[in-house]
């Protein structure tokens, strides 16, 4: 534990027997102080953008892994997506910014929920710094209150801050394995369970996990790879016009963020509408049995372990269909998401140079024709 995170105003979710110490403080941790580059203005990187949109429509997909070169705007894309999402309603003072309509997940324990005040806040994006300690990630004993009042209270960590938002890990491949394990566990279950130092608490932690890294600097263990929902390969554009466009837009944005954002506002609104409509439509998007069969066939042909491959494939295809406004999944959707959904799940020989991408593409061509 290295740092004391900013504390939130209401002392909720305390251990039984703790004394309340209301200390109104300004909440300063999630509000971005700088304008964010518009999502629609990002040049190229179509695969990454699509994967992020799918994850935003269907968070159950289990996170996105973006592997590739430096300086390609991975972090920009994630921040931009979060800013694109409409502000969310949250219970005032709730440390996990629970949805007032759903009620606090810790109903009964949460004192903030009783006040019934609702605030709106931007969708949080939390950075997980390399070298973060477990304490800081999952939360720990609130030291200040333990010292000043001798009570045991829980101090939420980064996972609590990321609830209902995004958790971004740069250089996920350099993160210690046990932390990645823990993050993936929480991301999959949507709940953070803390059992330490006499604290026993579980709180909601539903977030979209986005990891990035450069494979040349170290590989991720296969067990961990498999647990990311989608994986995308990010490359720097090699053609000159694209590169010029990237530099121009970045320069225009840095010179006058407000004007640049305004110029893209219409496009942003369109993407936002598409995203929200897709969320609405998701539950009603049908998955025909024939497509389930196709997905299963594809996974068998590729020899992916377990059923996670099929599940992710179907979920991603459904989210894509919802984004496209289709009523049900078709072959086209399956084909588009198959590579990001499956390429990191293939059993591989460490020395086999044929990348997952080519193997999945080959299998697709065999099954569905070129």
């Amino acid at each position, binding site marked *: 534990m290295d740092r004391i995170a900013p504390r939130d105003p209401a002392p909720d979710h305390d251990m039984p027997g703790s004394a309340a110490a209301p200390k109104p403080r300004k909440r*300063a*941790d999630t509000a971005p102080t700088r304008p964010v580059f518009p999502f629609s203005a990002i040049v190229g990187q179509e695969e990454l953008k699509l994967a992020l949109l799918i994850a935003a429509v269907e968070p159950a997909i289990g996170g996105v892994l973006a592997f590739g*070169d430096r300086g390609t705007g991975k972090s920009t894309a994630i921040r931009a997506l979060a800013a694109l999402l409409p502000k969310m309603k949250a219970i005032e003072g709730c440390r996990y910014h629970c949805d007032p309509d759903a009620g606090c997940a810790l109903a009964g324990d949460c004192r903030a929920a009783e006040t019934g005040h609702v605030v709106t806040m931007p969708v949080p994006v939390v950075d997980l710094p390399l070298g973060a300690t477990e304490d800081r990630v999952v939360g720990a004993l609130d030291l200040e209150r333990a*010292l000043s009042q001798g009570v045991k209270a829980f101090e939420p960590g980064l996972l609590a801050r990321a609830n209902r938002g995004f958790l971004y890990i740069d*250089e996920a491949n*350099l993160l210690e394995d046990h932390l990645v394990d823990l993050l993936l566990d929480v991301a999959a279950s949507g709940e953070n369970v803390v059992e330490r130092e006499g604290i026993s608490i579980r709180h909601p932690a539903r977030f979209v996990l986005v990891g990035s890294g450069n*494979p*040349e600097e170290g590989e991720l263990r296969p067990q961990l790879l498999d647990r990311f929902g989608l994986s995308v390969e990010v490359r720097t554009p090699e053609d000159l016009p694209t590169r010029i466009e*990237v530099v121009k837009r970045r320069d225009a944005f840095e010179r006058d963020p407000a004007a640049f954002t305004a110029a893209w506002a219409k496009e942003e609104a369109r993407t936002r509408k598409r995203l929200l409509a897709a969320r609405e439509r998701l539950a009603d998007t049908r998955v025909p049995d024939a497509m389930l069969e196709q997905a299963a066939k594809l996974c068998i042909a590729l020899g992916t372990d377990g059923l996670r491959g099929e599940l992710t494939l179907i979920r991603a295809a459904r989210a894509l269909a919802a984004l496209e406004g289709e009523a049900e999944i078709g072959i086209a959707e399956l084909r588009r998401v198959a590579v990001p959904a499956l390429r990191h799940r293939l059993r591989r020989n*460490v020395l086999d140079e044929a990348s997952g991408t080519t193997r999945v593409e080959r299998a697709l061509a065999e099954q569905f024709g070129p």
Partner: protein
Amino acid sequence: MNAPAPATLPRGAEAASTPAPEQDSALAAALFAIAPAALGGVRLRAAPGPARDAWLASLKRLLPGAPLRRVPPTLPDERLLGGLDLAATLAAGRPVAERGVLADTDGGVLIVAMAERLPPGTAARIAAALDRGEVQGPAGVEPARVGIVALDEGLEDEAPPAALLDRLAFALFDPPPPADAPDAARIAAARARLPEVTIPEAVIEALSATALALGVASLRAPWLALQAARAAAALDARDAVTDADAMLAARLVLAPRATRLPAPPEDEQQDQPPPPEEPPPESENQRQPDQGELQDLVLEAAKAAIPRGLLAALAAGQLRAKTAATGKAGAERQAAQRGRPIGARPGALGGGAKLALLETLRAAAPWQRLRPKGPGRVAVRRQDFRIRRFKHHAETTTIFAVDASGSAALARLAEAKGAVELLLADCYVRRDRVALVAFRGTKAELLLPPTHSLVRAKRSLAALPGGGGTPLASGLEAAHLLAEQERRAGRTPLLVLLTDGRANIGRDGTPGRPKAEADSLAAARLLRAAGIGLLLVDTSPRPSPFAQALAREAAARYLALPQPGSGALQRAVKEAAGG
């Protein structure tokens, strides 16, 4: 938006008159002082000494009143981003936050000493602060618009983490003391003018094209070059960026990042189609000629500034090893001498033990009501002390030194390659690093600096050609150097030498078997003296007596490459590495 017609300038004239390094060094300092945060910073690669101090002093003169902080590379996060103030916390009995160095230096320059030792985690946090211009401190988001001066004292291919270097506009290699630097008033005037400076489209295009032609992959580079060009225009009290500014930016920002030589200039291949780095012409109409010429000029300027050594290396086709070395250094030097913190345990202070403050306070907290109040607010007893524990990195780096000479190639180079591949799979299981040194002709060559990436190892092995003499001594020496370097970084080196033992090129590159053999034996003795583990795999058709003698001198395990399979070899490496 047309650029001023460069037709008046003879092509390449600007580039040919390469400015004196004193001027470039002064210009880099001046441009950086105009907009430290926008330009990211300067990598100052030089040994400590009066020249480096003079450069820093001149930078300081240009930034009167701005905070200028110097920090060591091993800065804990509490100090970098903000954290607990130890003294105040104990006195007050509650955690007292303290601002971090980055927030404290807002609007100024942070000088990182010995940046080549910067742990990748710290570099990542500095990089994030550079990207966002703010840090997430203990008391919320604080502005941190800083520029970084990375003092790089690295030897050979030691370098600061790539994540940081990518964000620093300038790189100065052994800069001389700046000559006729502008004064602080002029810098301040330029800073005020900066937001007004406009950039013609042609300059943006020329800088992007130049970056691509020089093989600079990161898109940050052309953008940083643009910022440098803008600062240069402001320094000259102009409202628009000119071609000269663009050429200056290409020289200072893009040239040091070059990873390949641009295609030869047009005049040498007039009857051929335009070189690929040119944008697809024709479709763009009247601006086309200007733009093309400006690109050439900018490219020429950058090319002229590429260090001579790099040119030679690029021309010799050693590109892969070179870029890998500079690009990957960050991740590779991650094992700090002290290892990774792995929590705390109860223990006594002293003997270099570090107090884990928070854990100590946490241990004391539940007892506060029971303990009599002392003078301070917190009663901490000896039994509450928690000290930090560090895990020592016992990582192994397996260095393969492969004899790729003609005799070895004739014999069993393919089999040796197969054996190395088997061993690589084994290294993957143990999460070892691997490095590849090959020797043939007259010298040894580092094909692959230590890496975790097995795919790269396999690729460079597959691309290894055979032929030429056997400079065995040079091969041993190169592997030895690399092993020492790894050991300094806190890892355990293990050498695997694959050779047929027919040394015929001496250490100095001269042919002659007796001298070559004597040199090899001497190199082997040095290995033994340094205590570096060696496994010698004899690839000659029949076990070679000289290889056996060499193994004895180096106190190495000797193994004749088994016929026909290479399974026995794999077992041998396992044993040599201690299972």
